[in-house]
Protein backbone atom coordinates (compact mmCIF):
# COMPACT_ATOMS: atom_id res chain seq x y z
CA UNK A 1 0.00 0.00 0.00
CA UNK A 2 1.27 3.45 -0.66
CA UNK A 3 -0.05 6.94 -0.30
CA UNK A 4 -0.06 9.49 -3.07
CA UNK A 5 1.46 12.91 -2.52
CA UNK A 6 -0.15 15.29 -0.02
CA UNK A 7 -1.26 18.01 -2.36
CA UNK A 8 -1.89 21.24 -0.55
CA UNK A 9 -5.11 22.34 -2.23
CA UNK A 10 -6.91 19.18 -1.31
CA UNK A 11 -8.52 17.63 1.75
CA UNK A 12 -8.11 14.08 0.51
CA UNK A 13 -5.27 11.72 -0.31
CA UNK A 14 -5.03 8.83 -2.74
CA UNK A 15 -4.20 5.43 -1.35
CA UNK A 16 -2.85 2.93 -3.85
CA UNK A 17 -2.68 -0.84 -3.46
CA UNK A 18 0.36 -2.01 -5.42
CA UNK A 19 -0.93 -5.59 -5.50
CA UNK A 20 -4.48 -5.28 -6.72
CA UNK A 21 -3.92 -2.02 -8.60
CA UNK A 22 -6.95 -0.52 -6.87
CA UNK A 23 -6.88 2.97 -5.46
CA UNK A 24 -9.06 4.78 -2.93
CA UNK A 25 -9.64 8.44 -2.18
CA UNK A 26 -9.22 8.80 1.56
CA UNK A 27 -10.19 11.85 3.61
CA UNK A 28 -7.48 13.79 5.39
CA UNK A 29 -8.59 12.34 8.71
CA UNK A 30 -8.59 8.82 7.31
CA UNK A 31 -5.11 9.36 5.92
CA UNK A 32 -3.75 10.51 9.29
CA UNK A 33 -5.45 7.57 10.99
CA UNK A 34 -3.93 5.03 8.63
CA UNK A 35 -0.54 6.65 8.86
CA UNK A 36 -0.62 6.40 12.66
CA UNK A 37 -1.56 2.74 12.48
CA UNK A 38 1.20 2.06 9.97
CA UNK A 39 3.92 3.75 11.99
CA UNK A 40 3.01 2.42 15.43
CA UNK A 41 3.12 -1.30 16.18
CA UNK A 42 0.57 -0.97 18.99
CA UNK A 43 -2.09 1.69 19.20
CA UNK A 44 -5.12 1.76 21.43
CA UNK A 45 -8.32 3.55 20.52
CA UNK A 46 -7.69 6.10 23.29
CA UNK A 47 -4.20 6.85 22.03
CA UNK A 48 -5.55 7.21 18.50
CA UNK A 49 -8.23 9.64 19.64
CA UNK A 50 -5.67 11.65 21.55
CA UNK A 51 -3.27 11.90 18.60
CA UNK A 52 -6.10 12.98 16.30
CA UNK A 53 -7.71 15.36 18.80
CA UNK A 54 -6.56 18.54 17.00
CA UNK A 55 -8.12 17.32 13.72
CA UNK A 56 -11.28 16.01 15.41
CA UNK A 57 -11.79 19.38 17.08
CA UNK A 58 -12.66 20.85 13.63
CA UNK A 59 -15.23 18.17 12.87
CA UNK A 60 -18.91 18.94 13.34
CA UNK A 61 -19.81 15.31 13.93
CA UNK A 62 -18.51 14.04 17.31
CA UNK A 63 -18.55 10.44 16.06
CA UNK A 64 -16.28 11.23 13.11
CA UNK A 65 -13.45 9.00 14.34
CA UNK A 66 -15.72 5.95 14.58
CA UNK A 67 -17.36 6.77 11.25
CA UNK A 68 -14.00 7.08 9.56
CA UNK A 69 -12.78 3.79 11.01
CA UNK A 70 -16.00 2.07 9.96
CA UNK A 71 -15.63 3.36 6.42
CA UNK A 72 -12.01 2.25 6.24
CA UNK A 73 -13.05 -1.20 7.48
CA UNK A 74 -15.93 -1.47 5.00
CA UNK A 75 -13.45 -0.82 2.20
CA UNK A 76 -11.00 -3.41 3.52
CA UNK A 77 -8.36 -0.75 4.12
CA UNK A 78 -7.94 -1.30 7.87
CA UNK A 79 -7.36 -5.00 7.29
CA UNK A 80 -4.99 -4.33 4.39
CA UNK A 81 -2.90 -2.01 6.52
CA UNK A 82 -2.87 -4.65 9.25
CA UNK A 83 -1.70 -7.41 6.90
CA UNK A 84 0.90 -5.26 5.15
CA UNK A 85 0.97 -7.74 2.29
CA UNK A 86 4.22 -6.22 1.05
Amino acid at each position, binding site marked *: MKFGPCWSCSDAVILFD*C*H*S*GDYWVVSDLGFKLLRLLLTHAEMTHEALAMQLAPDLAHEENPAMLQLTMQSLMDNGLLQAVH*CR*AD
Partner: protein
Amino acid sequence: MTQRDEGPTLVAVLADPQLATPLNDAQWSRLVSTARHANLLGALSGRLKAAQILIPARASRHLDGAHQLSDRQHRSVRWEVHQLQAALGHLSIPIVLLKGAAYVLSAHSLGQGRLFGDIDILVPRTALGEVESQLMLHGWVSAKTSAYDQRYYRQWMHEIPPMSHIRRATVLDVHHTILPLTARHKPDPQQILSRALPVSEPGLPAIRVPCPEDLVIHSIVHLVHEGELHNGLRDLNDIHSMLGKFGSMPGFWTRLAAHAIGNDLSGPVSFGLALVQQVFGTPVPVVVREQLTQAQRGRRPSTLLLATFGLALEPPQPDEQNPAVAIAQWLIYVRSHSLRMPLRLVVPHLARKTWLAWFPDKER
Protein backbone atom coordinates in the same frame (compact mmCIF):
# COMPACT_ATOMS: atom_id res chain seq x y z
CA MET B 1 17.78 -23.01 -38.69
CA THR B 2 19.70 -19.80 -38.93
CA GLN B 3 19.26 -17.67 -42.01
CA ARG B 4 21.99 -15.15 -42.59
CA ASP B 5 19.77 -12.16 -43.26
CA GLU B 6 17.23 -12.77 -40.57
CA GLY B 7 19.57 -13.51 -37.69
CA PRO B 8 19.48 -16.33 -35.16
CA THR B 9 16.17 -17.98 -34.26
CA LEU B 10 14.35 -17.21 -31.04
CA VAL B 11 15.09 -20.66 -29.63
CA ALA B 12 18.78 -20.21 -30.42
CA VAL B 13 18.94 -16.85 -28.62
CA LEU B 14 17.08 -18.21 -25.59
CA ALA B 15 19.66 -20.99 -25.40
CA ASP B 16 22.63 -18.68 -26.03
CA PRO B 17 21.87 -14.99 -25.44
CA GLN B 18 25.33 -13.96 -26.75
CA LEU B 19 23.95 -14.60 -30.25
CA ALA B 20 21.99 -11.37 -29.86
CA THR B 21 25.06 -9.17 -29.50
CA PRO B 22 25.84 -8.50 -33.17
CA LEU B 23 22.24 -8.06 -34.35
CA ASN B 24 21.22 -5.14 -36.55
CA ASP B 25 17.94 -3.21 -36.23
CA ALA B 26 16.00 -5.39 -38.65
CA GLN B 27 17.15 -8.56 -36.90
CA TRP B 28 16.21 -7.16 -33.47
CA SER B 29 12.84 -6.23 -34.92
CA ARG B 30 12.27 -9.78 -36.10
CA LEU B 31 13.48 -11.31 -32.83
CA VAL B 32 11.18 -9.11 -30.73
CA SER B 33 8.22 -9.74 -33.00
CA THR B 34 8.76 -13.52 -32.97
CA ALA B 35 9.15 -13.57 -29.20
CA ARG B 36 5.95 -11.59 -28.79
CA HIS B 37 4.08 -14.01 -31.02
CA ALA B 38 5.34 -16.95 -28.99
CA ASN B 39 4.45 -15.19 -25.74
CA LEU B 40 8.12 -15.32 -24.79
CA LEU B 41 8.97 -11.62 -24.88
CA GLY B 42 9.25 -11.35 -21.10
CA ALA B 43 11.29 -14.55 -20.90
CA LEU B 44 13.61 -13.27 -23.65
CA SER B 45 13.99 -10.01 -21.77
CA GLY B 46 14.98 -11.87 -18.59
CA ARG B 47 17.45 -14.08 -20.43
CA LEU B 48 19.14 -11.13 -22.17
CA LYS B 49 19.34 -9.11 -18.96
CA ALA B 50 20.82 -12.01 -17.01
CA ALA B 51 23.50 -12.39 -19.68
CA GLN B 52 24.05 -8.59 -19.62
CA ILE B 53 23.56 -8.23 -23.34
CA LEU B 54 23.59 -4.65 -24.60
CA ILE B 55 20.20 -3.99 -26.17
CA PRO B 56 19.52 -1.03 -28.49
CA ALA B 57 17.09 1.55 -27.09
CA ARG B 58 14.17 0.82 -29.43
CA ALA B 59 14.22 -2.90 -28.77
CA SER B 60 14.68 -2.20 -25.06
CA ARG B 61 11.32 -0.47 -24.87
CA HIS B 62 9.55 -3.61 -26.01
CA LEU B 63 11.57 -5.96 -23.80
CA ASP B 64 11.32 -3.75 -20.71
CA GLY B 65 7.63 -3.18 -21.35
CA ALA B 66 6.95 -6.92 -21.42
CA HIS B 67 9.01 -7.44 -18.29
CA GLN B 68 7.19 -4.65 -16.49
CA LEU B 69 3.84 -6.17 -17.43
CA SER B 70 5.03 -9.55 -16.21
CA ASP B 71 6.11 -8.10 -12.85
CA ARG B 72 2.73 -6.46 -12.51
CA GLN B 73 0.99 -9.75 -13.26
CA HIS B 74 3.19 -11.60 -10.76
CA ARG B 75 2.03 -9.17 -8.09
CA SER B 76 -1.52 -9.60 -9.19
CA VAL B 77 -1.28 -13.41 -9.05
CA ARG B 78 0.16 -13.28 -5.55
CA TRP B 79 -2.73 -11.10 -4.48
CA GLU B 80 -5.28 -13.43 -6.08
CA VAL B 81 -3.79 -16.36 -4.20
CA HIS B 82 -4.25 -14.43 -0.96
CA GLN B 83 -7.90 -13.99 -1.93
CA LEU B 84 -8.15 -17.76 -2.49
CA GLN B 85 -6.72 -18.36 0.97
CA ALA B 86 -9.31 -16.00 2.39
CA ALA B 87 -12.17 -17.71 0.54
CA LEU B 88 -11.16 -21.36 0.96
CA GLY B 89 -8.74 -21.49 3.89
CA HIS B 90 -11.31 -22.59 6.47
CA LEU B 91 -12.29 -25.69 4.43
CA SER B 92 -9.18 -27.52 5.75
CA ILE B 93 -8.29 -28.93 2.36
CA PRO B 94 -5.07 -28.49 0.42
CA ILE B 95 -5.33 -26.03 -2.43
CA VAL B 96 -2.60 -26.88 -4.91
CA LEU B 97 -1.62 -24.17 -7.36
CA LEU B 98 -0.84 -25.36 -10.86
CA LYS B 99 1.14 -23.91 -13.77
CA GLY B 100 1.69 -20.14 -13.75
CA ALA B 101 0.44 -19.48 -10.24
CA ALA B 102 2.65 -22.32 -8.95
CA TYR B 103 5.69 -20.77 -10.65
CA VAL B 104 5.09 -17.44 -8.94
CA LEU B 105 4.61 -18.90 -5.46
CA SER B 106 7.25 -21.61 -5.66
CA ALA B 107 10.51 -21.05 -3.84
CA HIS B 108 12.56 -21.47 -7.02
CA SER B 109 11.88 -18.12 -8.73
CA LEU B 110 10.35 -19.74 -11.77
CA GLY B 111 8.36 -17.94 -14.37
CA GLN B 112 10.47 -14.77 -14.52
CA GLY B 113 9.16 -12.58 -17.30
CA ARG B 114 6.21 -14.88 -17.94
CA LEU B 115 2.75 -13.55 -18.68
CA PHE B 116 -0.28 -15.17 -17.14
CA GLY B 117 -3.79 -15.91 -18.20
CA ASP B 118 -5.95 -17.88 -15.83
CA ILE B 119 -5.15 -19.16 -12.34
CA ASP B 120 -5.32 -22.96 -12.01
CA ILE B 121 -5.85 -24.85 -8.76
CA LEU B 122 -6.19 -28.55 -7.91
CA VAL B 123 -8.44 -29.61 -5.04
CA PRO B 124 -9.68 -32.99 -3.78
CA ARG B 125 -12.67 -34.15 -5.81
CA THR B 126 -14.71 -34.74 -2.67
CA ALA B 127 -14.41 -31.07 -1.75
CA LEU B 128 -15.46 -29.75 -5.15
CA GLY B 129 -18.99 -28.78 -4.13
CA GLU B 130 -17.85 -26.84 -1.09
CA VAL B 131 -15.09 -25.14 -3.05
CA GLU B 132 -17.51 -24.01 -5.72
CA SER B 133 -19.94 -22.65 -3.10
CA GLN B 134 -17.30 -20.74 -1.21
CA LEU B 135 -15.93 -19.25 -4.40
CA MET B 136 -19.38 -18.05 -5.41
CA LEU B 137 -19.86 -16.50 -1.98
CA HIS B 138 -16.65 -14.58 -2.55
CA GLY B 139 -17.63 -13.25 -5.93
CA TRP B 140 -16.55 -15.84 -8.46
CA VAL B 141 -19.21 -16.92 -10.95
CA SER B 142 -19.25 -19.61 -13.58
CA ALA B 143 -18.04 -18.14 -16.86
CA LYS B 144 -19.71 -20.72 -19.10
CA THR B 145 -23.45 -20.63 -18.76
CA SER B 146 -24.80 -22.89 -21.50
CA ALA B 147 -25.98 -26.34 -20.39
CA TYR B 148 -23.73 -27.96 -22.99
CA ASP B 149 -20.60 -26.18 -21.75
CA GLN B 150 -21.43 -26.98 -18.13
CA ARG B 151 -21.75 -30.67 -19.06
CA TYR B 152 -18.57 -30.61 -21.19
CA TYR B 153 -16.53 -29.37 -18.30
CA ARG B 154 -18.06 -31.30 -15.45
CA GLN B 155 -18.81 -34.63 -17.02
CA TRP B 156 -15.98 -35.00 -19.47
CA MET B 157 -13.12 -32.74 -18.59
CA HIS B 158 -11.29 -32.49 -15.35
CA GLU B 159 -12.52 -29.22 -14.03
CA ILE B 160 -15.64 -27.35 -13.09
CA PRO B 161 -16.32 -24.68 -15.71
CA PRO B 162 -13.97 -21.69 -15.43
CA MET B 163 -15.07 -19.17 -12.86
CA SER B 164 -14.49 -15.47 -13.25
CA HIS B 165 -14.57 -12.92 -10.49
CA ILE B 166 -17.46 -10.48 -10.82
CA ARG B 167 -15.40 -7.41 -10.02
CA ARG B 168 -11.85 -8.28 -10.94
CA ALA B 169 -12.57 -10.39 -14.04
CA THR B 170 -9.72 -12.79 -13.22
CA VAL B 171 -10.43 -16.32 -14.38
CA LEU B 172 -10.03 -19.29 -12.08
CA ASP B 173 -9.87 -22.90 -13.29
CA VAL B 174 -10.64 -25.40 -10.53
CA HIS B 175 -9.37 -28.91 -11.33
CA HIS B 176 -9.95 -32.15 -9.48
CA THR B 177 -7.59 -34.19 -11.61
CA ILE B 178 -4.97 -33.32 -14.17
CA LEU B 179 -6.39 -35.07 -17.22
CA PRO B 180 -9.99 -35.32 -18.38
CA LEU B 181 -12.03 -38.17 -16.95
CA THR B 182 -12.42 -39.50 -20.47
CA ALA B 183 -8.70 -39.54 -21.30
CA ARG B 184 -6.60 -42.54 -22.17
CA HIS B 185 -4.25 -42.15 -19.17
CA LYS B 186 -5.63 -42.18 -15.66
CA PRO B 187 -3.24 -40.39 -13.29
CA ASP B 188 -4.28 -40.31 -9.66
CA PRO B 189 -4.53 -36.71 -8.48
CA GLN B 190 -4.12 -37.84 -4.88
CA GLN B 191 -0.43 -38.46 -5.59
CA ILE B 192 0.09 -34.82 -6.56
CA LEU B 193 -1.95 -33.65 -3.58
CA SER B 194 0.00 -35.80 -1.12
CA ARG B 195 3.41 -34.76 -2.47
CA ALA B 196 2.54 -31.05 -2.64
CA LEU B 197 4.64 -28.61 -0.62
CA PRO B 198 3.71 -25.53 1.41
CA VAL B 199 4.65 -22.11 0.02
CA SER B 200 7.26 -19.87 1.59
CA GLU B 201 5.09 -16.72 1.45
CA PRO B 202 3.58 -16.01 4.88
CA GLY B 203 -0.18 -15.97 5.41
CA LEU B 204 -1.00 -18.83 3.03
CA PRO B 205 -1.32 -21.98 5.19
CA ALA B 206 -3.84 -23.72 2.93
CA ILE B 207 -1.94 -23.11 -0.30
CA ARG B 208 0.39 -25.71 -1.78
CA VAL B 209 2.56 -26.09 -4.87
CA PRO B 210 3.43 -29.39 -6.54
CA CYS B 211 6.86 -30.81 -5.73
CA PRO B 212 9.47 -30.02 -8.43
CA GLU B 213 9.02 -33.41 -10.13
CA ASP B 214 5.25 -33.01 -10.30
CA LEU B 215 5.60 -29.43 -11.57
CA VAL B 216 7.59 -30.74 -14.52
CA ILE B 217 5.33 -33.75 -15.07
CA HIS B 218 2.18 -31.66 -15.01
CA SER B 219 3.62 -29.11 -17.40
CA ILE B 220 4.64 -31.89 -19.82
CA VAL B 221 1.30 -33.68 -19.58
CA HIS B 222 -0.57 -30.44 -20.20
CA LEU B 223 1.53 -29.59 -23.25
CA VAL B 224 1.37 -33.06 -24.77
CA HIS B 225 -2.41 -33.14 -24.45
CA GLU B 226 -2.95 -29.54 -25.49
CA GLY B 227 -4.68 -28.86 -28.78
CA GLU B 228 -4.07 -25.15 -29.17
CA LEU B 229 -0.36 -24.53 -29.25
CA HIS B 230 -0.15 -20.73 -29.40
CA ASN B 231 1.50 -20.95 -26.00
CA GLY B 232 3.20 -24.25 -26.78
CA LEU B 233 6.72 -22.89 -27.17
CA ARG B 234 6.32 -20.87 -24.01
CA ASP B 235 5.19 -23.96 -22.10
CA LEU B 236 8.08 -25.98 -23.52
CA ASN B 237 10.45 -23.19 -22.46
CA ASP B 238 8.97 -23.44 -18.94
CA ILE B 239 9.82 -27.16 -18.94
CA HIS B 240 13.32 -26.44 -20.26
CA SER B 241 13.91 -23.82 -17.53
CA MET B 242 12.60 -26.07 -14.77
CA LEU B 243 14.79 -28.96 -15.84
CA GLY B 244 17.73 -26.56 -15.85
CA LYS B 245 16.96 -25.47 -12.28
CA PHE B 246 15.95 -28.84 -10.82
CA GLY B 247 18.27 -31.13 -12.78
CA SER B 248 21.13 -30.67 -10.38
CA MET B 249 19.04 -31.36 -7.25
CA PRO B 250 20.07 -34.70 -5.75
CA GLY B 251 17.66 -37.50 -6.68
CA PHE B 252 15.52 -35.31 -8.92
CA TRP B 253 15.74 -37.43 -12.06
CA THR B 254 15.14 -40.68 -10.16
CA ARG B 255 12.04 -39.24 -8.54
CA LEU B 256 10.83 -37.77 -11.83
CA ALA B 257 10.91 -41.17 -13.53
CA ALA B 258 9.38 -42.91 -10.51
CA HIS B 259 6.50 -40.46 -10.17
CA ALA B 260 5.76 -40.58 -13.89
CA ILE B 261 5.74 -44.36 -13.99
CA GLY B 262 3.83 -44.62 -10.74
CA ASN B 263 1.05 -42.40 -12.03
CA ASP B 264 0.38 -43.92 -15.46
CA LEU B 265 2.19 -41.05 -17.19
CA SER B 266 5.36 -42.68 -18.50
CA GLY B 267 4.17 -42.29 -22.11
CA PRO B 268 3.48 -38.54 -22.06
CA VAL B 269 6.57 -37.78 -19.95
CA SER B 270 8.81 -39.86 -22.19
CA PHE B 271 7.48 -37.94 -25.17
CA GLY B 272 7.79 -34.59 -23.46
CA LEU B 273 11.42 -35.13 -22.49
CA ALA B 274 12.24 -36.18 -26.07
CA LEU B 275 10.52 -33.05 -27.36
CA VAL B 276 12.25 -30.58 -25.06
CA GLN B 277 15.56 -32.24 -25.90
CA GLN B 278 14.82 -31.95 -29.63
CA VAL B 279 13.75 -28.29 -29.56
CA PHE B 280 15.91 -26.77 -26.79
CA GLY B 281 18.74 -29.29 -26.54
CA THR B 282 17.95 -29.81 -22.85
CA PRO B 283 20.27 -32.42 -21.34
CA VAL B 284 18.23 -35.43 -20.15
CA PRO B 285 20.03 -38.42 -18.55
CA VAL B 286 19.89 -41.45 -20.84
CA VAL B 287 18.99 -43.73 -17.95
CA VAL B 288 15.77 -41.75 -17.37
CA ARG B 289 14.76 -42.01 -21.03
CA GLU B 290 15.46 -45.76 -20.90
CA GLN B 291 13.43 -46.27 -17.71
CA LEU B 292 10.44 -44.53 -19.23
CA THR B 293 10.78 -46.47 -22.48
CA GLN B 294 10.87 -49.72 -20.50
CA ALA B 295 7.73 -48.70 -18.65
CA GLN B 296 6.16 -48.25 -22.09
CA ARG B 297 7.08 -51.85 -22.95
CA GLY B 298 9.97 -50.74 -25.13
CA ARG B 299 7.94 -48.23 -27.13
CA ARG B 300 9.95 -45.09 -27.85
CA PRO B 301 8.34 -41.71 -28.56
CA SER B 302 7.04 -41.69 -32.14
CA THR B 303 9.47 -39.81 -34.39
CA LEU B 304 6.58 -38.77 -36.61
CA LEU B 305 4.74 -37.26 -33.67
CA LEU B 306 7.91 -35.54 -32.45
CA ALA B 307 8.41 -34.04 -35.89
CA THR B 308 4.77 -32.91 -36.05
CA PHE B 309 5.00 -31.22 -32.65
CA GLY B 310 8.34 -29.66 -33.54
CA LEU B 311 6.77 -28.17 -36.65
CA ALA B 312 3.60 -27.10 -34.88
CA LEU B 313 5.61 -25.30 -32.19
CA GLU B 314 7.69 -23.21 -34.59
CA PRO B 315 7.12 -19.51 -33.91
CA PRO B 316 5.19 -18.10 -36.86
CA GLN B 317 7.25 -15.95 -39.21
CA PRO B 318 5.48 -12.62 -39.82
CA ASP B 319 4.82 -12.84 -43.54
CA GLU B 320 5.26 -16.50 -44.24
CA GLN B 321 2.43 -18.90 -43.73
CA ASN B 322 4.14 -22.25 -43.85
CA PRO B 323 1.41 -24.71 -44.90
CA ALA B 324 3.31 -27.59 -43.28
CA VAL B 325 3.14 -25.75 -39.95
CA ALA B 326 -0.57 -25.14 -40.36
CA ILE B 327 -1.20 -28.80 -41.11
CA ALA B 328 0.93 -29.88 -38.17
CA GLN B 329 -1.03 -27.57 -35.89
CA TRP B 330 -4.33 -28.90 -37.14
CA LEU B 331 -3.19 -32.50 -36.64
CA ILE B 332 -2.17 -31.71 -33.06
CA TYR B 333 -5.53 -30.03 -32.46
CA VAL B 334 -7.54 -33.02 -33.63
CA ARG B 335 -5.24 -35.45 -31.81
CA SER B 336 -5.65 -33.54 -28.56
CA HIS B 337 -9.37 -33.92 -28.73
CA SER B 338 -9.14 -37.63 -29.38
CA LEU B 339 -6.83 -37.91 -26.37
CA ARG B 340 -9.29 -36.07 -24.17
CA MET B 341 -12.51 -37.59 -25.42
CA PRO B 342 -13.58 -40.78 -27.18
CA LEU B 343 -14.18 -40.21 -30.89
CA ARG B 344 -17.94 -40.49 -30.59
CA LEU B 345 -17.83 -37.38 -28.39
CA VAL B 346 -15.22 -35.53 -30.42
CA VAL B 347 -17.11 -35.08 -33.66
CA PRO B 348 -20.32 -33.61 -32.20
CA HIS B 349 -18.18 -31.37 -29.96
CA LEU B 350 -16.05 -30.02 -32.79
CA ALA B 351 -19.10 -29.59 -34.98
CA ARG B 352 -20.75 -27.54 -32.27
CA LYS B 353 -17.63 -25.39 -31.84
CA THR B 354 -17.62 -24.63 -35.56
CA TRP B 355 -21.33 -23.78 -35.54
CA LEU B 356 -20.83 -21.35 -32.68
CA ALA B 357 -17.85 -19.75 -34.40
CA TRP B 358 -20.02 -18.96 -37.41
CA PHE B 359 -23.13 -17.97 -35.51
CA PRO B 360 -22.11 -16.79 -32.08
CA ASP B 361 -25.56 -15.45 -31.21
CA LYS B 362 -27.33 -18.70 -31.90
CA GLU B 363 -26.51 -20.41 -28.64
CA ARG B 364 -29.43 -22.57 -27.60
